[in-house]
């Protein structure tokens, strides 16, 4: 058992910040198959104007499903919302009917996806696809609509927009396609942008560009962004808040500088130790091994769990850990952890 | 093999098809027993409706021929022609397709151009021409069906051969000196078997339809009474005694549908099998 050094000196309590208004609040959202197996378990977070919340985790942790549920795009059947609420614009989206969802999509909440090529209709020009969104959300047609399309393309920093608008998706590079998707998403002036692994399929250099573009949109329009990613480097550079998911639950959540510099949950520590940047942070000094070196895998969808889902792989697990699923507890203002062993470090 | 059967068995429509086909085959085989004698014989009172006379359960046609006898003997004709044509076309197509795919080059080009040409001439027209030019007989009918069906098999086998030619196990066989013929016969063809079987089953169905069409137009075997011929004969009495045309048509419908269902079932059963084997 690695020696768990004494807890780092408590990081300076950050000066209380006035948080921007909440735009969307997820309360104890639980998604599952029918009424059975839970795929996402009592997840709660808040998206705020102009801020980026990153949902981090391995594949299978439930982060994509959480994102899809915010747009009513869950593959239902078999996955459905079992309980919880999604509060947006005075409504609970969890109870919305198809007509209600159509009003929200694109206009209130918009989403971009991972594979930009397959996310675009191959037989329509990108100008027409963006134009479709423009016409739908603004009611503009003809010339004014075309103008708007070009404006949107400029907004996302698409080079040579006028010519590109007449191109088909396969003619564009990956980065440009993703810009097209962002432009399409912005057509309805949504309050929230959900980005599900937007850069995973792109080159490293392009990745930063895309996120910079998104950052500009946040600044200019007060866009609230939910970023799904497993790339901690990107998250570190752009996120205001981070929520770490494991096996369908949020295990650590809070201001990004807090969570990333002083990770408290053993899983988060393992993740951060696995960063290719060399793990120079406090982790190394703590001697906490990388997640890959701990071994084991996240529980599959049919695993029945009692106790903490991470316990089987956790080097600090005790019998108490295996008996009950820990709740999120506030470690410091703006930083919450679901682990009973953290208190032990303090 | 038994895994295949188990998979096939689970497909209810396919099983139904198999049952129906088995019934038709049994009836065809048993024709001389159930209704001995010549189906052309005018033994009944003409224009009997089905059920009027229990001796002739399906009634009789305009000249007093027993419809049941015609149905049974017609089953033999359809099945024999359909199956033999499918087998010959399948063999011919497999031969040309595998040679074309294996050797490539000018042989491939020539054979494939030939196959394409056979496919561009409308199938039924080609069949009519062949039968008309060479006088209708079971042989010419089978020949005409083969002429229009073989290209499909050839292309399929060629595609599979091309794919398999570059496979590791074939290269391995070459490297220890296996001759071309042996490679084709023992390595490549067995792996093509599945889609070819499915195609052959479909060809039986289309063969039966072509034969029926030819007989209807008067180009059938003049000595045999085929279902298509029965429909043509019944056409004259369509107004008053439509059952004469309806019943043989239903027979064709059922038989072809049964074969199609079996083909679908084979396709479904063989596909996952295919995927696993090719890995």
């Amino acid at each position: 058992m690695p020696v768990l050094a004494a807890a780092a000196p408590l990081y300076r309590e950050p000066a209380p910040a006035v948080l921007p208004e909440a735009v969307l609040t997820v309360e104890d959202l639980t998604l599952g198959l029918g009424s059975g197996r839970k795929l996402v378990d009592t997840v709660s977070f808040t998206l705020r104007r102009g801020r980026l919340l990153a949902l981090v985790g391995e594949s299978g942790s439930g982060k994509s499903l959480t994102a899809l549920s915010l747009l009513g795009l869950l593959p239902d059947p078999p996955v459905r919302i079992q309980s919880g609420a999604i509060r947006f614009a005075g409504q609970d989206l969890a109870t919305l009917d198809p007509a209600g969802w159509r009003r929200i999509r694109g206009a209130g909440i918009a989403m971009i996806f991972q594979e930009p090529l397959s996310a675009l209709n191959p037989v329509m020009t990108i100008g027409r696809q963006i134009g479709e969104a423009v016409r739908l959300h603004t009611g503009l047609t003809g010339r004014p609509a075309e103008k708007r399309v070009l404006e949107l393309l400029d907004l996302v920093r698409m080079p040579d927009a006028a010519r590109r608008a007449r191109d088909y998706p396969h003619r564009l590079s990956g980065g440009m396609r993703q810009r097209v998707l962002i432009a399409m998403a912005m057509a309805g002036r949504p309050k929230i942008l959900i980005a599900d692994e937007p850069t995973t399929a792109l080159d490293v250099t392009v990745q930063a560009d895309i996120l910079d573009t998104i950052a500009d949109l946040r600044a200019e329009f007060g866009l609230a962004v939910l970023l799904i990613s497993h790339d901690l480097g990107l998250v570190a550079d752009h996120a205001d808040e981070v929520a770490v998911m494991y096996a369908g639950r949020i295990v650590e959540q809070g201001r990004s500088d807090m969570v990333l510099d002083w990770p408290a949950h053993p899983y988060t520590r393992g993740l951060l130790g696995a960063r290719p940047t060399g793990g120079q942070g406090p982790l190394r000094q703590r001697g906490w091994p990388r997640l890959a070196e701990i071994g084991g895998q996240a529980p599959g969808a049919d695993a029945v769990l009692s106790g903490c889902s991470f316990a089987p792989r956790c080097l600090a697990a005790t019998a108490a850990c295996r008996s009950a699923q820990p709740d999120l507890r506030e470690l410091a203002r703006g930083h919450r952890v679901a682990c009973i062993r953290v208190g032990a470090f303090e | 093999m038994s895994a295949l059967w188990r998979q096939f068995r689970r497909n209810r429509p396919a099983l139904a098809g198999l049952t129906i086909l088995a019934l038709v085959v049994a009836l065809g085989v048993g024709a001389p027993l159930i209704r001995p004698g010549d189906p052309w014989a005018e033994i009944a009172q003409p224009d009997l409706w089905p059920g009027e006379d229990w001796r002739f359960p399906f009634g009789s046609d305009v000249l007093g021929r027993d419809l049941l006898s015609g149905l049974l003997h017609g089953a033999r004709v359809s099945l024999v022609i359909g199956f033999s044509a499918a087998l010959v076309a399948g063999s011919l197509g497999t031969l040309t397709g595998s040679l074309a795919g294996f050797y490539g080059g000018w042989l491939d080009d020539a054979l494939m151009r030939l196959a394409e040409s056979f496919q561009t001439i409308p199938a039924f027209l080609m069949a009519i021409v062949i039968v008309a030019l060479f006088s209708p007989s079971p042989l010419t009918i089978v020949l005409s069906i083969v002429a229009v069906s073989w290209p499909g098999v050839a292309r399929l086998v060629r595609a599979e051969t091309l794919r398999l030619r570059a496979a590791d196990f074939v290269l391995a066989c070459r490297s220890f000196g296996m001759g071309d013929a042996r490679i084709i016969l023992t390595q490549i063809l067995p792996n093509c078997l599945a889609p070819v079987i499915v195609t052959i089953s479909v060809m039986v169905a289309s063969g039966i339809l072509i034969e029926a069409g030819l007989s209807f137009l008067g180009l059938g075997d003049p000595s045999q009474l085929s279902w298509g011929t029965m429909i043509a004969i019944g056409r004259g009495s369509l107004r008053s005694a439509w059952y004469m045309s309806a019943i043989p048509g239903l027979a064709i419908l059922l038989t072809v549908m049964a074969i199609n269902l079996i083909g679908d079932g084979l396709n479904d059963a063989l596909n996952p099998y295919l995927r696993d084997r090719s890995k």
Partner: protein
Amino acid sequence: MSAIAIGFRLPPYARFLARRIGQSLALVFCTVLITFTVINLAPGDMVDVMAGEAGAADAGYIALLRQRYGLDQPVPVRLLHYVEQLGHFDFGYSFRHNKPVLQLIGERLGATALLMGSSTILAITGAVLLGIMAARRLNTATDGIISVLALLAYATPVFWVGLMLILVFSVKLRWLPSGGMETLFSGLTGPARFGDLAAHLVLPAITLALFHLALYTRLLRASMLEVLRQDFIRTARAKGLPERIVVGRHALGNALLPLVTMVGMQLGAALGGSVVVESVFAWPGLGRLAFDAVGERDLNLLVGIVLFSGLLVITVNLLVDLLYSWLDPRIETQ
């Protein structure tokens, strides 16, 4: 691209076109070869038939005829002669009708084109409607019923369907005429004539369409299912588009592409089917002409029709290929 390169290289689309035309010509040659072979393999030739009919079995007369029609020449010479004839658009001469084959074909082509055109439109329209319905209500009763009906239509002999339709709609219900293209000697003109034509067209067009309807429905259903699984459909929904636009514009636009190819491929089958349909409905088209030629042993005409059909199919396939490459922007014709 330098100025020199432009001078020496054709634009990519033209190169594609040239290649396809070249392939088609090769195909044409093969088809001619096959037709010629079949003609010459047949026992007895035209002269035997003619002599038999004339009743004159005089050996000298027969030899004279052979010489006149060049049938005493060696095979390669005759092939050359035949090809040369075709080059002049001479498809042969029909002795029965005493007209050049091509002229006969021309007279009947319109009727067949009308029949095939309307049946194709019927088949495609029906397939789109049914295919979408089946794909959207996957594995429900509707889907099942559509699949069963498609299966039935696929297995039914075309001529029998025709007869049954005549039985129901013509004999029993007396709604529609049982044959022919127009009511003869009726003296109808204008819209009334058009209506008469349409009434005569309904049953044969439906009969011919049924088989292809089944085929296209199955294809479209499978194609729609495939397309609806794609990511861009999710994007379209995420945009907030109503479902009917997602399906009708985005999904269908992509799902129709394989259908285009299939329709082109089926032209040959449709031509073959028209022989039977035209016989059943006494429709004065090419198919009927071919069938009559069989009965009359007019081999010239028959073979001429076959050749013409083959060439027609080749041309249409070429056009369909071009159409497809124009429709699908992913095909870079380089």
